[in-house]
């Protein structure tokens, strides 16, 4: 017969297993509650008008929708992605293709890490100082918000791209080089296409992260009620709309905040979901 494990040890084991399971459940509680309240409070605000009218800015009467905020978020985040993705992947390409071991690239890696840790509001301040205070291209403007967001996204893009590019088997680079391909063609025809799905996934996740940021937009894009498609003007955005609405006393404005939050989270989740689907389909090797 097999001697049973001492009762005390078994009990400790069971207790600790329960504690770890409990911790996991506790971790998920906020998610459940946030989602629950987003739907409960936010769904009531959602209507056709919600997406097709601008905030009225009135204290009394109907508060209007969030069209300008949605347009602003898409425009600002879109431009930020256009800036951050090529630059971020470029830096990662340097690190993987040219600077595997040298001191310079280790310093660059360190600074990319530093950038990841810089609080978003500090990026906002920086762009405020450099672009808003100096009055380049007017005062507050959507594109300045884009640059602030791009600074946030850039290290995230770089780090994920570095991992993905590093996964491209060296044998493919060697095969292309041995065929007499110049380095730049190896990069553009072999390395980038092979890594493409992973690069898309990493970039979309970075963009999703940037889309929810409020702080950097506070002093760069500012906020206006009217819809504008011009990135050279002040622009509304969903996070700023929520931030401003939360602090209003009127119930209908607070409801608009919940509706905006539901919209924003839905947009981010859709981006995240697409990114993950691309990732899943790409496992060729």
């Amino acid at each position: 017969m097999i001697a049973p494990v001492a009762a005390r040890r078994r009990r400790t084991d069971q207790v600790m297993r329960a504690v770890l399971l409990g911790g996991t459940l506790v971790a998920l509680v906020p998610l459940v509650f946030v989602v629950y309240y987003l739907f409960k409070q936010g769904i009531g605000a959602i209507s056709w008008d919600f997406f097709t009218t601008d905030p009225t800015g009135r204290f009394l009467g109907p508060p209007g929708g969030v069209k300008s905020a949605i347009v602003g978020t898409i425009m600002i985040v879109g431009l930020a992605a256009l800036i951050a993705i090529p630059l971020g992947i470029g830096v990662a390409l340097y690190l993987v293709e040219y600077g595997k071991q040298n001191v310079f690239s280790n310093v660059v890696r360190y600074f990319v890490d530093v950038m990841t840790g810089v609080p978003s509001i500090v990026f906002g301040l920086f762009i405020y100082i450099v672009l808003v205070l100096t009055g380049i291209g007017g005062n507050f403007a959507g594109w300045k918000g884009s640059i602030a967001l791009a600074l946030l996204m850039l290290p995230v893009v770089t780090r994920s791209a570095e991992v993905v590019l590093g996964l491209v088997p060296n044998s493919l680079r060697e095969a292309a080089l041995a065929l007499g391909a110049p380095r730049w063609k190896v990069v553009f025809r072999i390395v980038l296409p092979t890594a493409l799905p992973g690069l898309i996934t990493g970039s979309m996740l970075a963009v999703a992260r940037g889309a929810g940021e409020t702080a950097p937009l506070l002093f760069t894009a500012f906020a206006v009620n009217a819809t504008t498609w011009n990135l050279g003007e002040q622009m509304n955005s969903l996070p700023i709309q929520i931030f401003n609405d939360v602090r209003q006393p009127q119930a209908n404005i607070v409801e608009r905040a919940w509706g905006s939050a539901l919209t924003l989270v839905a947009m981010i989740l859709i981006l995240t979901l697409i990114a993950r689907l691309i990732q899943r389909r790409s496992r060729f090797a």
Partner: protein
Amino acid sequence: MSTEPTERAAQAPAEAVPAVTPRTAGAKAPAEIVSPGRTVTLDGLKAFYGSSEAVRGISLTYAANEVTAMIGPSGCGKSTVVRCINRMHEEIPGAHAEGSVLLDDADVYAADVDVVAVRRQIGMVFQKPNPFPTMSIFDNVAAGLRLSGRRGDVKDRVEQSLRGAGLWEEVKDRLSQPGIGLSGGQQQRLCIARTIAVEPEVIIMDEPASALDPISTLKIEELVEQLKTRYTIIIVTHNMQQAARVADKTAFMLSGELVEFAETEKIFTNPDDSRTEDYVTGKFG
């Protein structure tokens, strides 16, 4: 077993003419050899990984239109030697080579020589088949041409190369399917097709059959036999039977040094050096 290679070597020039289609102005080509390969001469070649010396001063001449095998226990530096010939060695971070490698009498390490041009003339087939995963069978073969920036009739060249690699009949109906969908042996022949599509003058094969099953191995060996009518072939192998079967001359290396270089028959039947004798008779490996 030991007499076989010499017999084949003697027959090869005679049977080569009908077997292979001439690639350039056939009228000028010598009768028994379809196209003259180039002589490759190593003169005091040393190769380093960081500060450790993997190849310690090797001098030997690979004759045109012959198959030369490099044998020796693993870690003896045979792969490093051949990677120095098309300057792939320097792609490894921290690695460099000294001495000279002459293609006929042009030094591939001369200061004004472009490494990319060297590799177009000296093709390479790797140990593990490494077709480009993002490309179809057709595109894989065309890749060499496209990557080295040559225009012209890609389609004909692809067919010609696939025929040259003995793969055409097996894949002609599915050229647009991914290259990585082929079996290991087919993939390796695809890589050979890709290499000869660029029309090199020398082909280096770094243990081309070590990852393949016996039947695929046999096909590769037959292919080598045909290819030598057009190219100078250098084949690294850890398989002595293979060296005996395909090579006209064989070089035996040990600890980064060339121990003996002679007719294959001599190496396997009557070597001068006792270490060669010990190795080919299997006293160490």
